[in-house]
């Protein structure tokens, strides 16, 4: 409300409309008046009022109907009901229709000024909240772009020059000097990867993932995740065994993020496994839940760390050798599982290994069949 706040009065009694205009038309407000609901609504569209007074009892369109239409025109408009029959019921009803407050007739000029001030304060708050919410959304959406430029540009420049120096000085550096240059380069690279992971967490609106939910086969999900982790497992001579109950109900979900979640768990299982040990992935149905567990015989997690491992940036302190990581993998995983209306938990014994369990709601046969997305004639892309 950078300009004078605009107030619209919708009342069939000319006396009320006139006196309101006079009381509020003191130079601080811009006031307009309409003598019935239909005219009032037309004016609301052009006048863009901040605050609207609506008489409940008018010939033609009722005050209640006007309130409802006003909300359709602009839900941020603050409406105050003027009522000659100030019963509790009509006040409650109008509040239910979204009115901010009500003013019983007859009222004094001071009463009108007071309620106007409160109504306009409410309007400021509503607008401010909306602006903040919009700003927050924009910030989040642009965060990835801004940060990648502001944070990555200097790193790109550093890395590019390390590359160039490495090439220019090839043959002139001692082994030790070359190795230090390479380590500089590796550290910059790690930092860039870390920034990327953080961005992934902060700029992704996981709720939007719900829009992509389709009935998803548990076996495909698990197979894809295992495939991603397999090369690292092979390097460490860790066998990944899968044990899937058949048949398994499908789940409602987004395969991409589900795979990401399971890859995080499996990746950890492999990372913390001892060379030559196995990782076991099980999937079974328990009632209306699909339960997927990943068990390793690795270094395990200390009891005091267990409750916090799904928190952002938390990294266990008590494991054997510290492993590189962002401290975000499990936090992302938990969020992905929760967006799928599931839960994740962990059990562990230090030195013996850990078991992570993901529980997701199973699609019943009927749900899978009635879901429009699962019908071939509707789906198109399956």
């Amino acid at each position: 409300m950078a300009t004078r706040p605009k107030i619209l009065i919708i009342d069939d009694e000319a006396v009320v409309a006139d006196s309101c205009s006079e009381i509020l038309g003191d130079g601080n407000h811009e006031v307009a008046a309409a003598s019935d609901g239909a005219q009032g609504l037309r004016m609301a569209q052009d006048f863009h009022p901040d605050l609207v007074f609506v008489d409940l009892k008018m010939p033609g369109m009722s005050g209640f109907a006007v309130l409802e239409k006003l909300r359709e025109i602009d839900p941020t408009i603050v409406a105050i009901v003027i009522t000659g029959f100030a019963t509790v019921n009509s006040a409650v009803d109008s509040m239910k229709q979204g009115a901010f407050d009500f003013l019983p007739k007859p009222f004094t000029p001071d009463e009108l000024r007071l309620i106007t001030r409160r109504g306009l304060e409410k309007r400021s708050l509503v607008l401010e909240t909306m602006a903040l919410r919009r700003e927050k959304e924009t910030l989040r959406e642009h965060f990835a772009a801004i940060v990648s430029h502001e944070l990555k540009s200097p790193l790109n420049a550093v890395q590019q020059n390390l590359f160039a120096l490495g090439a220019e000085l090839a043959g002139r550096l001692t082994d030790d000097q070359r190795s230090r240059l390479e380590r500089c380069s590796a550290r910059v690279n790690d930092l860039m990867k870390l920034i990327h992971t953080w961005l992934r967490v902060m700029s992704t609106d996981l709720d939007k993932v719900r829009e992509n939910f389709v009935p998803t086969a548990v076996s495909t999900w698990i197979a894809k995740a295992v495939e991603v982790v397999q090369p690292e497992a092979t390097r460490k001579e860790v066998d990944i065994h899968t044990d899937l109950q058949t048949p398994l109900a499908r789940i409602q979900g987004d395969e991409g993020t589900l795979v990401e979640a399971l890859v995080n768990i499996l990746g950890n299982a492999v990372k913390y496994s001892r060379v030559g040990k196995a990782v076991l992935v099980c999937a079974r149905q328990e009632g209306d839940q699909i339960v997927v567990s990943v068990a390793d015989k690795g270094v395990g997690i200390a009891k005091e760390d267990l409750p916090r491992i799904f928190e952002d940036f938390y990294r266990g302190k008590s494991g054997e050798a510290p492993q590189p990581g962002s401290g975000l993998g499990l936090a992302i995983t938990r969020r992905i599982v929760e967006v799928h209306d599931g839960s994740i938990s962990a059990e562990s014994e230090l030195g013996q290994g850990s078991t992570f369990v993901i529980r997701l709601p199973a699609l019943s046969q009927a749900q899978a069949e009635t879901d429009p997305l699962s019908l071939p004639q509707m789906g198109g892309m399956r």
Partner: protein
Amino acid sequence: MNSQKHLLIIDDDPDFVAGIRSILESANYLVDVAYNPKDGFEALQSKPYDMLLLDIMMGRGAEGVMVARKMRKDPKLRELPVLIITGIREQIAFLFPGGPVHPRFVEVDELVEKPVEPKLLLERVSALLQSAQAKKASPA
């Protein structure tokens, strides 16, 4: 054929430019630099270059894209090979949601990510120069 190739870099980060310029110069390319899109486009119009190395995220946003669009409208510059050097692929995806990662701004272009390893940079530059030459030799 063996004459020294003349390249132009348009990128607003002088430190980054130093890191690719030295690689290109040590491979015997002649390198000019413009540190903003405006100077860059003027340089393109003032002299015949064999190739442009173009940054995308400059100034207030994707100003590099504007340079490419102006080039496409210019009959002389349309044929010039362009190597797009940009921060991350996601930025391209962000600018052209749903579009291919490789934008195809002009007839001959290619995309590499920052930072770029010397070997890869030189390979891409020489491959682009060759394909531009091949195109010129046998107009479709």
